[in-house]
Every structure is written in structure tokens, then in C-alpha cells.
């Protein structure tokens, strides 16, 4: 069992939890994920690690309450225990040695874009961040993102905060003004797809972090297979980061929606994020 040490609501639908998981905390690196199972009857769900503290032996996750499991998990409080918490899974992000990077988060994807920006910032890379949300009331991690970037560009779909529009609108402008040698995009699949389409003509290396359907997270089920550059890859062991210019996003979107009927409520909420 894995004890929850801390819980914070970042907005109505997004919860941050810090979990006592010393073995994982000792090894985990930016970009890797864990799989958790709430209890004996639970499903196994993958969540990218948002933060970790090796000395304290803790791992922090941030999740949106989109499915049965995340909705139930959101009701857990500090002191409660999660049955299973497995990791660190997947490969760490391979940042390379960029000089100037743009890190883009969409919605709850900012929870993972932020630690990536932080890691780059700590490597001495000059980082700009673009964070997109549907509206002002669901903005998360603004001070944190601001602290690790030269500029934080905030967008909302409805214009209720920051610039009105999409992250790609800002990105297009920045690509004409700045010269980046790395772009990291984490968020809804359509966002990652359009960011990749935007950076491709500019020749900016783009990494996306995928979160497909999976069970074991060790290469065993093959449920997470994605087509990247015409080759079949398993996101759990070959990813979760991939070259954004090579991912078949349409196939991924179809595969990820397979159990929509079984998770009708998840469908509704995700549709909102995908707007």
C-alpha cells in the first residue's frame, strides 16, 4: 500500500497528490510515468510523474477527474492508501543539449509540461512556456510555470484570461520572432498534433508525451502501441516521449477512444478539453 501524504486541488477537476513511494522516488526521472491501482477492484491507469523528492521519498502526480478511477482517487485524502503504485516506467525524456526551448502545456498537460520546463531551466536552457486553458477558472500552476521560464504566455479559448486563442496562435508568432532548437508539447492529442504541424516547417525538434491505453506498462499488453514514423512502437517501453513530427495522431485518437462507451462521463469531459 502507498500512503497519500499531501493533496491539493488545483482547480475543480485537477488534483495534485504526493505519495510515499521511496523506491520510485530514488530512480524516477523527468518524463517517466507510474501506474496506479486504487484498490482490489480497480483498473491500472498510467500517470506521468509531475514531481518527485528523492530525499523525502515522495512522488507527486497531477490528474484530471475524467474517468471512474480518477474521480474516485480525487476523493482520497492524506493518510489514505493506494493499493498499487508502480514505476518508474517508460524512458526519461531525452532533452539533448538545446540552447533555447519552448515548452507548451494544454490544460492538465501543464502538470507535465511544467516539470519538463523546470528540468530544462535547471540545465541552464533558456525556456519560454505557452500554457493553454479553456477558461480562466481552470488555470493551474501559473506561478510555478512563471518561475522556470523567461516568458510564460497564457492563452484561454474564451479570452477570459491571458490571450484569447490557442497555444498554436502564440507558437506561430514566437516561431517568427525567436529561434528555438527544442519544442516540448504535452496536452490533448489534437493540441500535440497541431503544435507538431506548426513546428515541422520551422524544423524545430518537437517532443510529445503520449498517454495511450495500457495495462501493465512494461511492454506486455501491447495496448499502447502507436505508429511513429511508420513503425509500431509501445508507448510504455519505447516512450512515452516521441518525435512529434512522426506520430500518427489520428490513429492514436481512435485507439484512445475505444472504451468511450464504457466511460461515458470521461467522454464528455475530454471533449471539453479537446475543444
Amino acid at each position, binding site marked *: 500500500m502507498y500512503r497519500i501524504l499531501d493533496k491539493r486541488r488545483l482547480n475543480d477537476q485537477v488534483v495534485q497528490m504526493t505519495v510515499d513511494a521511496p523506491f520510485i522516488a530514488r530512480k524516477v526521472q523527468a518524463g517517466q510515468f507510474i501506474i496506479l491501482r486504487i484498490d482490489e477492484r480497480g483498473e491500472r491507469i498510467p500517470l506521468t510523474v509531475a514531481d518527485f523528492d528523492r530525499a523525502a521519498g515522495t512522488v507527486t502526480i497531477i490528474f484530471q477527474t475524467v474517468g471512474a478511477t480518477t474521480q474516485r482517487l480525487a476523493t482520497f485524502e492524506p493518510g489514505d492508501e493506494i493499493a498499487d503504485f508502480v514505476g518508474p516506467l517508460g524512458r526519461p525524456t531525452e532533452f539533448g543539449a538545446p540552447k533555447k526551448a519552448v515548452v507548451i502545456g494544454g490544460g492538465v498537460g501543464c502538470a507535465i509540461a511544467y516539470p519538463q520546463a523546470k528540468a530544462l531551466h535547471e540545465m541552464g536552457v533558456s525556456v519560454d512556456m505557452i500554457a493553454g486553458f479553456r477558461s480562466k477558472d481552470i488555470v493551474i500552476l501559473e506561478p510555478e510555470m512563471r518561475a522556470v521560464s523567461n516568458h510564460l504566455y497564457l492563452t484561454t479559448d474564451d479570452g477570459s484570461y491571458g490571450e484569447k486563442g490557442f497555444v498554436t496562435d502564440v507558437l506561430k508568432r514566437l516561431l517568427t520572432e525567436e529561434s528555438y532548437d527544442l519544442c516540448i508539447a504535452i496536452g490533448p492529442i489534437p493540441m500535440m498534433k497541431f503544435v507538431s504541424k506548426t513546428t515541422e516547417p520551422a524544423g524545430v525538434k518537437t517532443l510529445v508525451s503520449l498517454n495511450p491505453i495500457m495495462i501493465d506498462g512494461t511492454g506486455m499488453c501491447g495496448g499502447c502501441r502507436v505508429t511513429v514514423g511508420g513503425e509500431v512502437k509501445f508507448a510504455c517501453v519505447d516512450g512515452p516521449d516521441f518525435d512529434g513530427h512522426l506520430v500518427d495522431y489520428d490513429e492514436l485518437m481512435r*485507439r484512445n477512444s475505444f472504451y468511450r462507451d464504457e466511460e461515458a462521463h470521461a467522454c464528455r469531459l475530454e471533449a471539453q478539453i479537446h475543444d
Partner: protein
Amino acid sequence: MTNMAQTKVPMPEQAPDVRNRNFEEVALGYTADLAMEEATRCLHCKNSPCVSGCPVNVQIPDFIALIAAGDFAGAYAKIRETSALPAVCGRVCPQESQCEGKCVRGIKGEPVAIGRLERFAADWQMQQPPVDAQPPVSNGIRVAVIGAGPSGLTCAGDLARLGYEVTIFEAFHTAGGVLVYGIPEFRLPKEIVRREIEGLKAMGVKIQTDMVIGKVLSVDEIIEMGYRAVFIGSGAGLPQFLGIPGEGAVGVYSANEFLTRINLMKAYLDGYDTPIKRSRAVAVVGGGNVAMDAARSAKRLGAEQVYIVYRRSEAEMPARKEEVHHAKEEGIEFRLLNNPKRILADENGRVCGMECVEMELGEPDASGRRRPVEKPGSEFVLDVDSVILAVGTSPNPLIRSTTPGIEANRRGCLVVDESMQTTKPGVYAGGDAVTGAATVILAMGAGKTAAASIDAYLQQNN
């Protein structure tokens, strides 16, 4: 008096049209009377050819004699001397190619039902009040076992009996390996696996679940933690795909995914969160036990049509005969000498058919089986909405890629010597991680050999 009946005493089973709608065990097992009757068919041959067919050397005529005499506890104890998991083996061993394949009674008529008798003894024992197992006296030497599947459990059990302090590291949340994620409830009830594992724990074996070795800890770190030897029984878990067009379509699964959802995650039961699709018509590609398990599971989930699509003929099928027989009885349709060419998807990317081509058998290939060759122009479309691929698995690279000094062959299987030691001293391996996908009993045999080798190694190096 030897019972000279030419056929085995039949084992009661659920009727096919009843059982193909539930996940309860198909075969119900012998009663004491039926078991004693079958036991008297054994001729007690002097040279015991059956024993030579058993990878773990169960003293078959001896335990059968004890059953015939009504000493069921004695029979169980006799099996348990050499086999760590009798209730499992009695159910899933390919007896026809092992013990029963060597039985003299099989020359004229059916062999003695050794598997059924083994199962009877194990099930009888489980019905008895538990005996207070005294854990063996510890020798204080720690040994790590990676993977709680058949080879790891066997190795751990044997080492624990010798007094070693054994810890098993298991990647999943439940111990059992393929016995819990792969083999379905209707063939091997999970309660039986659980009890066998409880038995190991009672002997002092510790099991740490949720530990993906190669990620959370490396083999070297395990050794640094004070484990004096390591056994790797991490299996062959990576599913192979066919590489044909359409495999990315929605509704194409590996058998691993499909069976894990059902068996480990219990997706077919109300109250469990893991989702599973109820398909109308399912094609299962492959001819092994895993293909049979997937097909029969799909039928139980309510599919109207379930096809086994296999590119060779029935004679070449690697599945146990009993599984093929049961599958046919349950209404699985066999499309033999058929090979998939591509999977067809509708405008939403969902499976709407599978194009196959007819095959014929040519000359024998490297495996000794006749090579299937396409019949030109014989393509046709099978009307299905799901495709399950059961075309083999290979070992997971996670451990070999994170353990310096450990060698694997071209197929990714760990290289071991006859003592099951890998190329890294003190590190042993066995089961599917070494052989590639094989059987439960072969993995158990390897775990057993490794346990004896580890004991010898630690005696020498202590």
C-alpha cells in the same frame, strides 16, 4: 486387480452449451471413487516410462498406487516431494506429450489419466483442514527471485525448503505470472493459484509486488542489498504482432491484453473497473493454448461467432488436445489452413473484417512442421469486429538491457549453462525468459534445477 478398461474413466465436465456462457471451471474433477477406479488402470511398469516424461520427475506410479489404496494424503505428499504446484500441473500440463505420452497403456487404448489423478490428489488435499506448516529453519542466506510465475515460484519454494530466505519481486500487483494473467479461470481457478502461493508464504517466502526489476531496482542493486544469488524468471511477456496492414485498427488486441483484462483485471465481472468490449464476431489468430484460451474467453463474453484462424492444419497445432477438443465443443469455429493478410477497418478505424488467404502444406520447415504456402487467388474476407493475435511472445528486454554481464541470444532469450547459471556469476535464470514461450511445467522444471544449482553455488561460496 488391474482395471483393463481401454479408456480413461471420464471426468465430469460442465456441458459445452452451459459452460461457454460462464467462466466457471470446465472440468469438475474426479470423485474419490472415480479416482480410485482410474488409479487401478496403472500397470506399475518396472521402468516407469511415465516418470521420464515428467520435467519435474513426479514419482507417478507411486502416487497412483497410494490413490488406488485410498491414501489420498499420502498421494499428495508423494507428488509434493518433487512438484511445487500439483493442483496447477494437474490442470495445465500437456500430459499427452509428457507422462501420458509415455504410458504403456496408451499403446492400445488411452493412457492412464495421470493429469486427472494428480489434480484429484491436489484438490483433495485442499479440502482438508490446513496443517500448521512450520517454516523451515532459516540459514540466514538471502536469495532474490525475479518474477512470481511458475519458474520463480518453484525455485522460491525449493530454496525456502532448504532454509534460504527468499524474496520474490513481482512486477504485477498479484503473484502468479501467466497462471493469473494468462490462463483463464475456466481452466485454472485463481483461487487454486492463490492457495498454492499462500503455501509458499507459509514456508517463509516473501513476495514484493509492484516491483518492475530493471526499472525500480537493477539486478546489481538487488545483489548490493545483500541477496547472495538471484534467479530470473521474468517469462516471455512481449506479444508479437503479424506486421500486416490494419493492426493499428481499433478492436485489434494482443492475446496478452485481452486475457489480462479478463483474468488478472476481472473485467468480465461486475464491480471491477477495467473495461472490456463485448464483440459480435471475433477472429483469434494462432493455434496454441493461448489462442484457445482467448477464443473460449471471447465466446464466454457473448460473441456470436468466434473463429480460430491458423495457417497450418490441426495436426500441427501446438495447443493441448484437450483444449482444442473443448474449444470445438463450445462452438469455436476452426478456420485451418487460413492466413490473415490484412485487417479491414471502417471509417471510424474500427475493425470490420479480416482478409485471409487459404494455405496448403508444402515441405517441412526448420521446425519440422510442413510449411504452409498460399493458394494464389483464394483470398476471402472473414466478417469480424475484433481480432485477437495469439501468435507468440518473446522475453522482455527490461532485465537484460539493465544488467551488465548478462548475455542473451538473438531471440532475446537469456543464455544459461546446464546449471541454469547465466553469464553473470550468482545470477541464474529459467522458464520462458530462457526458452522463449513454452509450458508451465518446463518452467517449473527449470526453476527446480536452478534452485538446486543455487544451493550448490551458495554452499561452495559461503
